[in-house]
């Protein structure tokens, strides 16, 4: 009985800490994005709320919370309500298997591990939930009873399906080298410094993963589902208030999630690049690497215009997937002949 209670406390506290941390990072990611985009365009970004606009995410959250919640008259109400949840939950649930650090923490005789759970199909679990998010986008676009929303939803479905293929195939090379699907084991397989990180043998897979991850999270230059110059706001045109905020949170949570996965798969997770630098806590290494990727996404957004739809599809099917398949072939052949 005591063991069950202890287990429950540990699990619930870990989940709570992970959720709160992730949501805080999501909120401040919007701030960093606006700041960095502003600087890149010789502007300042948010400056008014708090010191240099530091309280802007909180003000935005409050504003969205108190906005009127509008459901269009002709919309399918059940699916319209369901869609934002269907987008947000998979985006947050993926964080359950992310190992944020190395050492468990002992407080009050309880052991808190730096991840919620370590399942042996971790990466598959994340990919599966990422695909459920596409349903939310598609259903939200359909249920709004708006042509722009429907077009946005359709585009999103087509895009996510084509880029998820290359995303999954890019990961296979790493899985072959690590010999496991568990994210904890993949991280541990990359110990021992910079040269053991999978980015070096799997550089092609890394580039494919980065590009597909941008498409997967519907970000520029692949933000066709919400292309505001063509489709108003795409699949969430009709959404307002908290429902809109759910889509917004999901987009940024997905950004953080794919950055976490990229960090674990290619940049050695919480491992320090050199033995001399391992006095910095592993959690900080992990967060630093994740923010490196997040900065890269914002940087790309500040640089590139949106692709045309046929360019997007052509690039996905004719370039990325063949490259990813070739990468798997070469990796498995090398592993078979070299490591036996």
């Amino acid at each position, binding site marked *: 009985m005591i063991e069950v209670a202890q287990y429950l406390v540990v699990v619930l506290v870990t989940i709570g800490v992970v959720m709160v941390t992730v949501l805080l990072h999501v909120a401040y990611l919007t701030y960093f994005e606006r700041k960095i985009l502003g*600087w890149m365009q010789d*502007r300042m970004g948010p400056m008014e709320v708090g010191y240099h606009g530091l309280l802007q995410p909180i003000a935005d959250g409050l504003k969205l919370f108190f906005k009127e919640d509008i459901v269009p008259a002709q919309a399918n109400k059940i699916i319209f309500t369901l869609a934002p949840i269907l987008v947000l939950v998979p985006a947050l649930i993926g964080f359950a298997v992310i190992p944020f650090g190395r050492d468990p923490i002992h407080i009050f005789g309880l052991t808190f591990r730096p991840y919620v759970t370590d399942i042996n199909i971790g990466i598959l679990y994340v990919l599966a939930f990422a695909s459920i998010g596409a349903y939310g986008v598609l259903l939200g676009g359909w249920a709004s009873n708006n042509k722009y929303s429907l077009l946005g939803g359709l585009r999103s479905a087509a895009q996510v399906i084509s880029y998820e293929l290359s995303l999954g195939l890019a990961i296979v090379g790493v899985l072959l080298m690590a010999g496991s699907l568990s994210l904890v084991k993949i991280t541990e397989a990359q110990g021992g410094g910079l040269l053991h990180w999978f980015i070096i043998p799997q550089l092609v897979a890394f580039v494919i993963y980065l590009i597909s991850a941008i498409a997967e999270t519907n970000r520029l230059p692949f933000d066709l589902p919400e292309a505001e110059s063509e489709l108003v706001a795409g699949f969430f045109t009709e959404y307002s208030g908290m429902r809109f905020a759910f889509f917004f949170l999901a987009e940024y949570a997905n950004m953080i999630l794919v950055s976490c996965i990229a960090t674990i798969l290619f940049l050695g997770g919480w491992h320090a690049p050199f033995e001399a630098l391992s006095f910095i806590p592993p959690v900080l290494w992990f967060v630093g690497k994740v923010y490196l990727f997040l900065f890269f996404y914002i*940087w790309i957004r500040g*640089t590139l215009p949106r692709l045309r739809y046929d360019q997007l599809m052509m690039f996905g099917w004719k370039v990325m997937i063949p490259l990813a398949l070739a990468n798997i072939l070469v990796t498995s052949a090398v592993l078979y002949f070299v490591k036996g």
Partner: protein
Amino acid sequence: MARLKDWFRQIFFWEILVGMAATLRHLFVRSVTIQYPHEKRALPNGYRGFIALLRYDDGTEKCVGCDLCEAACPSRVITVVSAEMEGQPLKRYAKEYTMDMTRCVFCGLCVEACPVNALGMTKEYEYATYDKRKLKLDKEQLLAIGDRAFPVREKRVEYQHPHAAFFNVAHRGYPAK
């Protein structure tokens, strides 16, 4: 060879990398934003803001009620009602002087037209209000603007006061101090 170079550039996303270098460079460029309510632009000396009625050094109004500004005004902003001074039949003044600033185009023609330099253009531009009737200024308000914008009443004020704006036509061509 050139084709090979192009091919390599294409597969390594050369153009995108060049673009990303440009955006990264601009990350460290000082922003051009002026945080308006907190910091304000330095206005040039020829700035044409609110129009003010001016006074002589002894505090009497310069305006003689000649109506030339009303005649010069292209958008009929100014209304002057002229009157004689009590007991001084040769002296006239503006009994009423109203400016409807909602119509003003800030062309400065009234200032140019004034024969006694009774009008001046200030650097005031923050006159947004919730009630547009407040922008119909009478003589007292215009004189108050003049007192505010040109606190030093000396001759050739435009050469002496740092806030002196485009002032009037009569002093044009005077050498700089």
